[in-house]
């Protein structure tokens, strides 16, 4: 009985560890393999709109046909490279703006009195209680030519012609920064609030003025939070579809929109899949490199 219990508890331990692996295998690795497979097949006008990899040729020989044309097309057609660069540009600039706006906010919340922090954090999280789509539509109402912003500015007399913001890259940036800001603030706040305030006193005591204290003590120690927050913004924005589609119209070329067009308008699943694979690769490679260097730094410390 006792032995049975021991083996069961050992198995139980195994099960617990297996759950996340199983989850990843079932809902990440397997679907990704499907996408990879589709990306390496040829398009056809049928249902499903791609040819099987495994095909019987006439004389009873089974052959595996791997088609790299889709990837070559991505490389050769400047449209796709342009979409990739467009996504990179939007993601980078948005992350930068999120940092410029989010860092002071996270810092202010972390430095505010204890009883203020929770309400302030709630205000950051509050928008999530409304659907993402509704919030993006609300921005249309604000930014369009006869929208809230323009009407207000005209009423003020600051302008006499409505500003053309809607369907420009600026609208996309506004939408993206607005939507993703909380994802940067939360991890950054978590890092900043843990910093030991006596370190700043020590720096002051050693002659560092407030700005120098921030630069030499707070900023370097908050970098892990900056990195985590930036990734939480950068990665999803790279594949973002809804915001550029609703607010940017045709003004911005991004990977997410490109994929949509290939899947639903051109019915070219293989090209869309290869786009998805390229995006994944682009996001994973820098991440892995980063982890590698982080691991090395930790080893050096030990």
């Amino acid at each position, binding site marked *: 009985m006792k032995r049975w219990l021991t083996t069961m508890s050992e198995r139980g331990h195994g099960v617990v560890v297996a759950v996340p692996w199983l989850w990843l295998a079932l809902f990440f690795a397997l679907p990704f393999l499907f996408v990879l497979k589709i990306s390496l097949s040829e398009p056809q006008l049928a249902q499903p709109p791609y040819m099987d990899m495994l095909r019987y040729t006439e004389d009873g020989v089974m052959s595996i046909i791997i088609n790299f044309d889709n990837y070559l097309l991505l490389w050769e057609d400047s449209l796709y490279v342009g979409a990739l660069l467009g996504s990179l540009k939007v993601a980078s600039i948005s992350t930068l703006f999120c940092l410029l706006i989010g860092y002071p906010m996270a810092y202010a919340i972390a430095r505010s009195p204890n009883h203020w922090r929770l309400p302030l954090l709630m205000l950051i999280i509050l928008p999530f209680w409304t659907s993402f789509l509704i919030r993006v539509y609300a921005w249309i109402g604000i930014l369009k030519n006869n929208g809230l912003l323009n009407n207000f500015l005209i009423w003020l007399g600051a302008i006499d012609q409505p500003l053309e913001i809607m369907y420009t890259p600026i609208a996309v940036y506004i939408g993206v920064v607005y939507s993703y800001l909380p994802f940067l603030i939360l991890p950054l706040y978590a890092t900043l609030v843990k910093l030991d305030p006596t370190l700043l006193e020590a720096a002051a005591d050693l002659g560092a003025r407030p700005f120098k204290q921030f630069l030499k003590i707070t900023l370097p120690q908050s970098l892990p939070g900056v990195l985590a927050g930036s990734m939480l913004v950068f990665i999803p924005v790279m594949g973002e579809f809804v915001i550029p589609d609703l607010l940017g119209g045709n003004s911005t070329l991004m990977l997410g929109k490109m994929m949509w067009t290939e899947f639903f308008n051109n019915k070219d699943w293989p090209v869309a899949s290869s786009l998805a694979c390229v995006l994944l690769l682009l996001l994973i490679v820098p991440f892995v490199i980063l982890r590698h260097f982080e691991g090395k730094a930790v080893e050096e*410390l030990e």
Partner: protein
Amino acid sequence: MTTQPINQTKDEVIHSNDDEIVKIDNVSKNFGNVFACDNINLSIHRGEFFSLLGASGCGKTTLLRILAGFETPSSGRVLIDGVDMTDVPPYQRPVNMMFQSYALFPHMTVIDNIAFGLKQESMPKSQLEDRVKEVMALVQIEKFAKRKPDQLSGGQRQRVALARSLAKQPKILLLDEPLGALDKKLREQTQFELVNIQERLGITFIIVTHDQEEAMTMSSRIALMHEGRIEQLDAPRRMYEFPVSRYSANFIGLVNLFDGHVISQDDDQVLIQSNQSETPLLVRYSQQLTSGMEVTVALRPEKIRIINNADDQPNRITAVIKDIAYLGDVSIYHAELASGLRIKFTLPNVQALAEQPLTWEQEVVLGWQADSCSLLTQ
């Protein structure tokens, strides 16, 4: 307030000239209704090893933080080397602090930590490197120069913190419970090292501690604080031998207290009647007292001797041994007087295998000299 001549320590002689480096002038600090510092006046001499001693919450740390510039006094002034520093921010004061938690910068190596202060005053590189090497040698941490704080032991971190606060050659070094995080052996060893370093550099050290032994070992003068006020300001020896109040007598070391009133005063001898003692107590005290005044006699346990009838002691008292605690070097005896008051006295254990000279329930006659005890008027 007492005038008995006692042997002055070396430090007292050196600092008897009034070379004042810190002047705390009527400083109060309140947080709401709570006064952390209540109208404190204090003058600290150049080159002194000064202790702010007290239980937690007595205001000693607040006073230290006022000196460092982290707190602004609610009223009063702070002068450092003759200059009013009351409203000067910490980064412009000629003062450095060693923090209780050490507050080492975790993302910097030992060298960078120590060089941090020097870099703020943009010292030339070669000079800076020499200076860093010098202080690292002073506290013997050259071996760990390239490490980060989390790769150091508690004792090593303490040394780095000390080196960092000494690097800028401050006029005053403030130390907030500098040995609090060390174990007992290391703490005792470090106490002497701190004193040696202080004597070598000649910098004024102001240390905050709750440990009376630490304060006694290291300092030239001690300010005992209680509820935001300075209870007593004295050299360690006077602090111990001549406490001014029940609080100081109790705070430092063990003490027996007899409450009573003055019967008569003759030259510098006072006779005191106490309900707690069968015989009147004779205390040497030279200031004028009025007859009938309420006073307390403070008697240290090691001043008490076991006497026989032939001995001529001005104070003698009969007691029954109730408890014995063997501490190795000495034994502490708890004895009950006829009045029910329990007093403590200590006897050295001179011989290793001596038979216990006293046992439980044994009646003994205890005696002490008139100048072995002190008189408290508050």
